[in-house]
């Protein structure tokens, strides 16, 4: 008789707990497997400080929004060109504004850097304060997290740049507004995790209830693996699985081990005494942007595969960052390049950075597409990846024609392969409200400053 595994089965040992990917043993009858409807996962990515395609010249050159709307659009001239292999999974919504990121009072003018990130997923206008009385709105990811079902980690908040600044960051705004894009309530911003080691331990490490100091030490030893700690449990489970499940389990554990090895290599390198590009960063943080982002993406993929969480927010930058992205083909630092003075040759330089950032998403989409979900479809079929910024033209600090796209099919609820150009002045919140309804929050009739809802399956 087939042994039926619970979806919440974990491999345990020495205080460590590793969740499992979907296995046929969790629904042994073929009919039951076919009836399984995987949950819809959400990843919300903020790439800060607008895009070259939001400038007048960028619009004219189709640097962000493709020239054509509907299903026949060409990504080649756009910053989204690296996503061409995933064009049928894209829903591009262009020509929308984030009015709530604008200044409404004289004292707020100039504070765009310190306001925008808090607006992105809340579409609310943050209260200008440097104290603890911060207020914005409940963010889109958290609204969905409350509906996405119970998982060991209700939602995961990640970031790339430093987020540990205290007090005010500028123009009377608390640094919290710059540091976090996820708000559990209008007054409760959630901390973002920058260190992949912390995220790994949160998901797979020996840091849960019952973990011993020995287990923690062992899990972090450079020459040891979390898998060593659950070896007996894994062997016991293997003996009860069919061939296909055994292969799937091995592949999954290989992926866990592979990312753990990368993490250990980064830590060893950063603790070696060699000069670091990011000397103040924790040992688990790779100095290289690609390596850092991809490690975080791989953790997200594993977290979805094992159903540890269904909701991730990921802040990829910081407005005032002077980071250089060698892989972009632009050798200037981010913030100065973003202030291109409206000059065409400089806008083109900024566009290279925008395209480079989007190219990182192609890596994520590829990983999601290549990962099988419970019903035999892919994680990309059952996910939505949201990408954008509350800033438009970074040079002017305006919030018009903001960059935004979605990728994935949301369990069949998003057809994808479409470019929707909104009428001028349309709030981005209308697209976000459309997404929230797509994700099952049908009763919502307003989000932020929405004055309508965009049908994300329209414009075909």
């Amino acid at each position, binding site marked *: 008789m087939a042994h039926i595994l619970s979806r919440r089965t974990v491999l345990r040992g020495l205080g460590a707990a590793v969740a499992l990917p979907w296995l046929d043993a969790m629904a042994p009858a073929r009919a039951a497997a076919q009836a399984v409807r995987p949950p819809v996962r959400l990843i919300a990515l903020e790439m800060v400080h607008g895009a070259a395609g939001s400038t007048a010249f960028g619009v004219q050159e189709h640097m962000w929004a493709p020239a054509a709307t509907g299903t026949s659009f060409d990504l080649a001239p756009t910053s989204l060109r690296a996503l061409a292999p995933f064009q049928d999974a894209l829903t591009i919504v262009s020509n929308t504004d984030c*009015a*709530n990121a*604008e*200044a*409404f*009072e*004289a*004292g707020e*003018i*100039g504070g*765009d850097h310190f306001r925008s990130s808090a607006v992105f997923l*809340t*579409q*609310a*206008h*943050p*209260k200008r304060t440097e104290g603890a009385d911060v*207020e*914005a*709105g*409940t963010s889109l990811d*958290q*609204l969905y*997290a*409350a*509906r996405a079902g119970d998982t060991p980690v209700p939602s995961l908040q990640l970031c790339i740049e430093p987020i540990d600044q205290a007090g005010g960051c*500028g*123009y*009377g705004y608390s640094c919290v507004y710059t540091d976090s894009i996820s708000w*559990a*309530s*209008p*007054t409760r911003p959630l901390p973002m995790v920058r260190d992949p080691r912390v995220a790994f331990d949160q998901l797979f490490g020996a840091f849960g209830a019952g973990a011993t100091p020995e287990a923690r030490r062992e899990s972090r030893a450079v020459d040891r693996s979390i898998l060593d700690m659950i070896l007996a449990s894994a062997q016991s489970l293997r003996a009860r699985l069919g061939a296909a499940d055994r292969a799937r389990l091995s592949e999954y554990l290989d992926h866990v081990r592979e990312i753990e090895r990368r993490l250990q290599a980064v830590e060893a390198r950063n603790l070696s005494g060699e000069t670091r590009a990011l000397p103040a960063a924790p040992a688990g943080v790779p100095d290289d942007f690609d390596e850092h982002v991809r490690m975080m993406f791989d953790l997200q993929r594993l977290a979805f595969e094992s159903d540890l969480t269904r909701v991730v927010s990921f802040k990829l930058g910081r407005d005032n960052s002077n980071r250089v992205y060698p892989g972009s083909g632009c050798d200037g630092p981010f913030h*100065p390049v973003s*202030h291109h*003075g*409206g000059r065409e040759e400089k806008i083109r330089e900024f566009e290279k950075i925008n395209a480079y950032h989007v190219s990182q998403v192609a890596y994520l989409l590829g990983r999601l597409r290549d990962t099988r979900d419970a019903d035999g479809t892919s994680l990309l079929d059952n996910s939505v990846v949201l990408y954008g910024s509350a800033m438009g033209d970074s*040079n*002017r*600090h305006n919030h018009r024609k903001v960059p935004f796209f979605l990728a994935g099919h949301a369990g069949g609820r998003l057809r994808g392969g479409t470019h929707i150009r909104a009428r001028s002045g349309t*709030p981005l919140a209308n697209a976000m409200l459309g997404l*929230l309804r797509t994700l099952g*929050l049908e*009763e*919502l*009739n*307003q*989000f*932020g*400053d*929405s*004055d309508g809802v965009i049908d994300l399956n329209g414009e075909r």
Partner: protein
Amino acid sequence: MSLRHMTVAAVLAASAVVPAVAAAGSVQSTIAGTWKLSIIADHAVPTALVLELAGDRLTGTLSIMNKPVAVAGQLTGDDFRVDGSGLAVSGPGDHGNMPQKGVNFTIKGRYDAEENTLAGTIAIEGGPTFKVEGERLRARPTGAPAPPAAGAAASARVDLSGAWTMGIDQDGTVMDGALTLEQAGQTLTGKFQNDHLGDVVLEGTFASSGLVTLKGSAVVSGTSYPMTFTGTVQPDGSLSGELASVMGTRPWTAHRVK
């Protein structure tokens, strides 16, 4: 030279210099107000220009990084000019020859009433002249609430109409009942039904802040007991709050009937 790395080290808000400009031409009163004035250098620098107009005379402030400097000047037809003193800027690198203490400056240009924009230049004494572009401060968007109330999912407004199961906590035991609500705008009407309290007709509001208020009276053995429910919408769509009655304050929750 550029303003790319410009920082305002200090602003000495000294008295404004009022230029001798001949008064002439028509006066556009609508130039008064708050403008987001961008100084177009390598790095566009956003500033706040607040203007008041009396006759053809302009007074106000120019603020960079919230440090205001007084300005004064004149509107002549659609052309404006204001002068100020005390703007002190300093910066590294290519700002080496930027004045390091309070400087005089002049902003002049044209007010476009139709486009509601300003365009012109700012000339810094002993320094460069930059283009400036102004747009009037945007009004808070329709439907965008003021910074929302604590605990409310106020940026995501919902329609509360429908059937709910309500539970009122009475020192550890929960008194269940059926709650039905109808929402029209911010007005709520409905009924709470319970074996002990009978039918309690409710009226109330769902404020833009996210606060739900429902009032009614339970009639038990001929005596009327007023009840006031206050609460908020939770991220999972449920309601929770407090009931105030002669029995004191009790927590309550309500979940939609599926």
